[in-house]
């Protein structure tokens, strides 16, 4: 039987949570920003080499600049978090530390992947400027626009959930 796992995407609004999921699930991208309200839930089954396949139930939450404002029922029964920020907008990662602390305290056993999206918009010098924040905390830099590293992100997380 295929196990299903609930993955929740968190982060400020407009950082590209919906876009990441659309790239992963439908392999599409749009420049138009349609604000998510409440939650959209989608599903994708992926094969993991030499393992059973796994169904990811992906919860795409309305963006919040503070995790504490998130409706707690949405987070119920989560198996893995993806915390997304917009690499090109420092305000979306300025409180990264406290956001991650909140998750660690309230969901101590749930793995968290920290993802900087919109890599296509920034360059190396820019990243270097924020390396003191990025180096210790960020797991993946991705781009929903180009698709870069998105498969890797989800399959890495999925493997940890088995």
């Amino acid at each position, binding site marked *: 039987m295929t196990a299903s796992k609930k993955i929740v995407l968190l982060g400020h609004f407009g950082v590209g949570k919906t876009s990441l999921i659309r790239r992963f699930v439908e392999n599409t991208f749009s420049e138009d*920003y349609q*604000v998510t*309200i*409440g939650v959209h*839930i989608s599903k994708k089954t992926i094969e993991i080499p030499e393992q059973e396949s796994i169904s990811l139930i992906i919860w795409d939450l309305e963006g919040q600049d503070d995790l504490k404002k998130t409706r707690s029922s949405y987070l*119920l029964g989560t198996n893995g978090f993806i915390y997304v920020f917009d690499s090109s907008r420092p305000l979306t990662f300025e409180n990264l530390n406290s956001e991650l602390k909140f998750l660690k305290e309230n969901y101590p056993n749930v793995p968290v992947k920290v993802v900087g999206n919109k890599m296509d918009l920034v360059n190396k010098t820019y990243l270097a400027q924020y390396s003191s924040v990025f180096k210790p905390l960020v797991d993946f830099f991705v781009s929903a626009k180009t698709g870069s590293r998105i498969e890797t992100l989800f399959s890495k997380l999925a493997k940890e959930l088995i």
Partner: protein
Amino acid sequence: MLEPYKKKYHTNNFQYILVDDLGCVLETDNTLFTVQKDSLLQTIHPFFEILNSLLQIDNDCFEFSCINLNLEKKVVIVDTIIYSQNKNENLIIIENLTKHYNNYQLAAQTRNESIINSQILELKNEYLLEKETFKNNFIANFSHQLRNPITASIIFSDLLINSDLNTEQKNYLDIIQSANKDLKNRIEDILDISKIESGKLILTEKVFDLKKLLNDIVNGYKFLASKKGLDFNFVIDENIPEFIKGDQYRLKQIIGNLLNNAISFTTQGSVNFKIALNYIRAKKANLRIEVLDTGCGIASENLDYIFKRFSKIESENQNIKGSGLGLAIVKYLISEMQGNIKVESEINKGSKFICNLSFKLSDYNQILKEELLSKQLLGLEKKYHILLVEDSELIQLTILKILAATGNFFINIISKGEDLVPNIINQDVDLILLTNTIQNFSAMDLTASVRNLSKDYKKTPIIVLSTLAFKDDVKRFKQAGVNDIITKPFDEKKLLEKIYKYIK
């Protein structure tokens, strides 16, 4: 009577579903969407996968709001309550709130977009500002470094002109001098622009003789025009006030720029310069300055560009190149003086620049006071001791030549900062000329070391020869006890004027 309304507005918006502990549908009313009895609710929409874990718990209630369900090819946004009960019979109530949430969506959309846009704008702004600051500092520093060599070049060519030269050599020297002047003006322009852009260009207010200033300007440009075979007409309205208060240097710069352009872009015909009084109101005179030429003119599509900075002018418009930064500075100066400027032009017919400027009225007494000071320059009775602290041999030589030529001074030159104090203790010094670029020492520290010696040295005039020309720099020097500043590049006249001013 209420029943039909309740049905329409309440019942129709709710779906009730009973499921067993695995999520299998036992009964439902199908108001919002159709589910088959005995089917697994999880297969209807991935949201219901949540049941797998929730239904394991007995006698609890879970509320989910604002869930977007994509069902039967349409989106409904619902609130859901799940009552898990212990008799293998669990109740799910789904309320359709699509309309309500869609309104909220619109509000959130506007709010988020405007927040994100303002963040992006702010970032862009920050980035641009950083770039601008970097550029302005670079320009300012670079122009400072050009000052020493240009000063030397100006002064030595001035000295050469009085030596024995044949006609050919004199002609060459003419070219060098005019190139020097040009170079100096361009550096001043670049500095002005960087001052403008960093908000450091500040206008001064002093009483001056307007008619005299105009005549000085006109004489210079009349000569230039006649060299090109152009008629130069100057019309002055006799009603204009004689003494006004304002920044005479900048006014000269504005008029000079306009006249200079008019002459450069005109190959035949005339340049007309008119100045008239518009009106006097609230003790202020509003003047109209008009410069008209019969030159090549400016195409109407370029009229917008001519007051913009060099990037635009040089790249996009070949036929007005050479006006360089001048008009951008003119425009800025005029707007700082609360005035306005406009241009009318026709290709191959000529251009007309008109600007209106207000100045406070003043009187002769004010100017007398200021003139008195400058008259004290002349007629020295004894020779004075000047101590020059400068490590550039070029500047040493330059100053030595100028001062020696007057016959009024004994000059002592040192090139190390640490020799300053021993030197002034051991001999008479009437005035110290101190460069601000000497190795290992700042002019401010050196000044402090002199001022701290004893009461006798508190009053020894110290003039700094500086490559730093910003108002802030000048202020810092003065606070450190420096009496005055001569900015590089300087010429003979400027140097002597300042020295005479401080020698009694």
